[in-house]
């Protein structure tokens, strides 16, 4: 038992344990619950910090638990998992603060925060999973932990959304399970390996390997909301804003995209995936999704729905990056994993603030919100411009590298996709910004809450989006600094293409 073997498990447990205790906390003990929440989030942050430093130094961390002979639950840290762990840990901390503010006075908070913590534990488990079995375990746990969050409000709408969510993700889970088992029946128990581990087998097993990839991709694509498997995402918008933020930026959708990246790079290996024609398949699906999501977003009046379709579109940039052969596109895809997360969570926080403070749920109601809530709207603007890809915000960096990678790989059609998508992004974000900043305020907001204190809304709601918007700017401005997401993605790409 040493730091190397305990750290990955400790990172998972640091949110699991508070989660379990939170269920037991009496409903009215707000302070105790808050302390548990924050303690878990901060301890996890510290542990992740230690891990980042270690992995950077070339240290390896691995927790291994034998479930049965040949079936090991493996948690290990490589550069890719650290990227995702860090993202979810930082954003969890921010989201927890936000959720405490957002849910003040609302019912069933012990249940909510309990599952909230379980959800993050599962996400971190997905990030650290060292083989397909472990990945499947945490992937399914994520489904279980998020269902109560989507259904949380208990309205008929919420129940319906949760049901659709469950139907999609459960089916996805089964497909993934079958794919994973099929693969393991062929290879035996093998851990994820940088550069993939199927190369040696590819000779006479092409058919099964392609079929397995399709199964895995279908299972992961459901969570990653790849068209035509995206139907659940707009429906689950009924969840409270912090949940949407978590679902879109940190946990569910990201878990699917992360899984695709894992399968392409560390199971199949990008070379093999290319030779089997799998990258083309992935590229076409991702491109379709990017365009389709953006087009649908144009026509949504509900702010959260528009953001949801935007997620459908944006997350597929990650898959697109994975589908282009070459380290630069890889960097673009990987870095977008982080960039999309911080930008989208900002947007969802802001959407939640508008809804909580002013009762504004629709784009058509947003006239003049910029004057009423300047800081929130500023954060929203940063997130939206980033999504469009305007420098120096984070999203620009992702698109730049994706484009460069496409040129390097002679996949010029990708540039068309990127350009079209950016135009469409502008098409659905700029009208919002215009309304918010340049249209006059209405006489009365749909449902305004009297605000206490000096700011436009309560602090716990205001600071999280401001902080994440700041991160979007920093990630873009300081992209070349050590330990920036970009530099880390480059580290991953170097190790994958070794």
């Amino acid at each position, binding site marked *: 038992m040493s730091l190397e073997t305990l750290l990955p498990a400790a990172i998972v447990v640091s949110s699991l344990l508070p989660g379990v205790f939170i*269920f*037991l906390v*009496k*409903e*009215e003990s707000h302070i105790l619950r808050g302390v548990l929440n924050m303690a878990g989030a901060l301890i996890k942050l510290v542990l992740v910090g230690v891990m980042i430093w270690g992995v950077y130094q070339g240290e390896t961390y691995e927790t291994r*638990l*034998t*479930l*049965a*002979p*040949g*079936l090991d*639950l493996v948690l290990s840290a490589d550069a890719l998992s650290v990227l995702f762990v860090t993202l979810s840990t930082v954003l969890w901390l921010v989201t927890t603060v936000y959720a405490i503010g957002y849910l003040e006075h609302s*019912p*069933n*908070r*012990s*249940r909510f925060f309990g599952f909230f913590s379980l959800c993050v534990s599962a996400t971190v488990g997905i990030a650290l999973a060292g083989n397909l*079995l472990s990945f*499947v*375990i*945490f992937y*399914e*746990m994520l*489904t*279980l932990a998020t*269902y*109560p969050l989507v*259904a*949380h*409000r*208990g*309205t008929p709408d*919420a*129940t319906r959304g*949760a*049901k659709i969510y*469950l139907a999609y993700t*459960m*089916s996805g*889970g*089964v497909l993934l*399970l*079958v794919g994973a*088992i*099929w693969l*393991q*029946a062929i290879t035996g128990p093998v851990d994820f390996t940088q550069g993939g581990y199927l190369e040696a087998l590819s000779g006479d097993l092409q058919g099964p390997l392609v079929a397995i990839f399709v199964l895995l991709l279908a299972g992961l694509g459901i969570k990653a909301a790849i068209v035509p498997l995206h139907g659940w995402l707009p429906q689950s918008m009924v969840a409270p804003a912090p949940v949407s933020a978590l679902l879109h930026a940190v946990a569910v959708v990201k878990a699917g995209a992360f899984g695709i990246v894992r399968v392409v790079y560390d199971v199949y290996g990008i070379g093999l995936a290319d030779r089997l024609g799998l990258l083309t398949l992935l590229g076409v699906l991702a491109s379709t999704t990017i365009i389709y999501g953006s087009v649908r977003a144009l026509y949504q009046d509900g702010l959260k729905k528009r953001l949801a379709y935007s997620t459908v579109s944006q997350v597929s940039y990650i898959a697109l990056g994975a589908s282009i052969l070459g380290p630069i596109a890889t960097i673009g895809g990987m870095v977008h994993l982080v960039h999309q997360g911080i930008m989208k969570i900002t947007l969802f926080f802001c959407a939640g603030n508008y809804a909580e403070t002013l009762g504004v749920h629709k784009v058509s109601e947003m006239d003049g919100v910029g004057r009423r809530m300047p800081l929130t709207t500023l954060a929203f603007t940063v997130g939206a411009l980033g999504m469009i890809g305007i420098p120096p915000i984070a999203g620009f960096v992702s698109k730049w590298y994706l484009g460069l990678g496409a040129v390097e790989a002679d996949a010029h059609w990708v540039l068309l996709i990127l350009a079209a998508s950016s135009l469409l992004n502008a098409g659905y974000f700029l009208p919002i910004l215009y309304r918010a900043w340049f249209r006059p305020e209405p006489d009365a907001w749909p449902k305004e809450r009297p605000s206490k204190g000096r700011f436009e809304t309560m602090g716990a709601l205001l600071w999280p989006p401001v902080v994440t918007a700041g991160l979007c700017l920093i990630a873009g401005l300081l992209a070349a600094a050590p330990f920036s997401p970009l530099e880390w993605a480059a580290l991953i790409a170097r190790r994958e293409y070794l």
Partner: protein
Amino acid sequence: MDASLALAVSVPLIGGLLATALPKRAQGLGLLASVATVLVVGWVMAGVWQQGSLHAELGGWAAPLGIALAADGLSAALLGMAALVALGVGIYASGYFRSADADRHFWPLWLLLWAALNGLLLAADLFNIYVTLELLGLTAAALGALTGTVDAVRANLRYLLVGLLGSMTYLLGVALVYTSYGTLDLGLLSNALEPGPVAATALVLMTAGLALKAALFPLHFWLPPAHANAPAPVSAALSALVVKAAFYLILRLWLDVFAPVVTPSAAGLMGMLGALAVIWGSWRALRAERLKLLAAYSTVAQIGYLCLFLPLLQALPPGAERDDLFVALVLMALTHGLAKAGLFLAAGLVQRSAGHDRIDDLGGTAQHMPATTFTIALAGTALIGLPPSGSFVGKWILMTSALESGQWWWILVIAIGTLLAAAYVFRVLSRAFNLEPTPRSFVTQARTEVPALLLALTSVAVLGLAADPLWRLLGAGGGA
């Protein structure tokens, strides 16, 4: 050391007799006997853990006239599961029954059932198996009818008659075996047995009788009403233990004693019945209007899963792979036992709090009782076979084995069964999300809620994440 085997049967038996003799102290005596039995079972398990198997002859009389008891990994594992469930059920029952009368009637029968079950798991010859099987059936039916309502009595009378039919059929098979081989001892038989019409007929008869008791599709018709109408602690024991006991015997016969007789097509037939059971049981569970009926149909489906292992086990030669698959089977059986017990206990609490168990009207109740709803969720996780439950590991090994042996069609069955199970479990759980007021605390009545929760939790966390010792207990190669 071998005294432990006799004690595992006699301690609950004596407890039952004392509870009959001193009805006013039935509860205290019952709980005391339960704890004592759990300790003895622990002793048996420790013995098997160290020595691989145990054997004892009662009163010093050797077979064929004496009664021999034996324990190996399989029986020890099931004994242990039964002890956990029984302890949980006992503690739960001490807080569940409202009338002193019900409490008085419960304990003697319950301890007798436990004694019969332990006897069945330890019996080393076919005839003692018959006796314990019959005793188990009688006590189970009597307990099931304990509420005394017309529905309960009618359902359990049917159960009793069906059970008798099953044991008569089984007994005829036993008689056939004795005609040909002149012994009933399991060990002697497995050496002497050779394929032939007599052995095959005997196996068919015994299996048919046991399948009736194990509610193997299409012989499951009696189970749902009987289990759904019994008092909650009894339903839990019936579904988790009594049905399993009959299945345990099928396993013994098919994989152990009669292994040479079993042909691929026979095993395939069992698998096919299992597949139908999985799909039909899950489908009926999905359509069930009442929570306890849902749980009962889910038992039909779960027995089906266990049968899916038979054709795969038959196809594998002895070796590490077969051992793994066998342990996976046991793991699934144990997981199901604990989870189903938890589910039925929780369903009983829901029923008592709401005054009914119609799923569609459960909203408020489910939300008022977080611990109970949690129990249902955990048990549901195990029933669906989601991680980290023991049945996930079991299913993973089962599906791997199906692929490796080329019998991939079982995978489709498992996939469909999993989705149906998810649908019926979440049909219940979705009722817990509602606009009702927030419950104030997690647990409302510790004495009944905690045992149910712990049983379900064990099926998920312990069996799913720490099942490795099971490999050693069952003597399979891979374990620590």
